[in-house]
């Protein structure tokens, strides 16, 4: 039985979600189920298409905040393992932004943990996003949806 704390990484360079998830799965043969969420920069057409996306973080708070979120998530559900990988910096369409994976004996725990972690990463983590379209760079304001998502867990 692998007993290990959550793994949290904040990366300034591109990563392979496939390799990350394969390694995580291999590390948790005792888990009956593994749920993953991959968020990536959308490839879209048209004048509103995003050409690049930049996530800024704040060294003093962003990774510590992610680690606290991972600890909270791991405490709330019965997990065999939890992985959170998040990019900062400039990304292009198709690039992965965030990967969350939760391994658990019971499927429901894995789903809920991944869902919970994503809702909080989206709306409570210290990231600031701007997007570049044909019209130039533009800072993104938080979406009302993100706050609604968060309220589900209260």
């Amino acid at each position: 039985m692998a007993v290990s704390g959550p793994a949290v990484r904040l990366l300034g360079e591109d990563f392979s979600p496939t390799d990350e998830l394969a390694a995580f799965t291999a590390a948790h043969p005792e888990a009956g189920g593994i749920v993953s969420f991959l968020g990536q920069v959308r490839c879209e057409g048209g004048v509103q298409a995003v050409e690049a996306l930049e996530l800024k973080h704040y060294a003093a708070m962003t990774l510590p905040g992610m680690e606290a979120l991972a600890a909270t998530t791991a405490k709330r559900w019965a997990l065999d393992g939890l992985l959170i990988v998040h990019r900062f910096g400039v990304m292009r369409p198709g690039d992965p932004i965030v990967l969350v994976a939760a391994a658990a004996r019971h499927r429901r725990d894995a789903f809920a943990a991944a869902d919970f972690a994503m809702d909080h990463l989206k709306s409570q983590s210290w990231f600031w996003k701007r997007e570049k379209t044909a019209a130039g760079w533009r800072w993104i304001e938080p979406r009302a949806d993100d706050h609604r998502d968060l309220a589900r867990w209260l």
Partner: protein
Amino acid sequence: MPAKLVFLGRLEDIAGMGELAVTPAPLELVLAALDPALAVELLGERVRMALNGSLLSDNEAVVLAEGDELAFLPPVSGG
């Protein structure tokens, strides 16, 4: 040793810089020395502050000491 202001998100664009070294002093005095347009943004209702990595509660009096890092955090929009 000076203190440091850190401007996150769109505040970096407005400030034209990510960080600014300032003389340790009560926050009002530090802000009074800045471009008023920037100071107004920094004091915006939705901007939170963190001192040395810890969030401050609203209306908390801040006096910057030597080596302090005060960050101005607009609403997040991550992931």
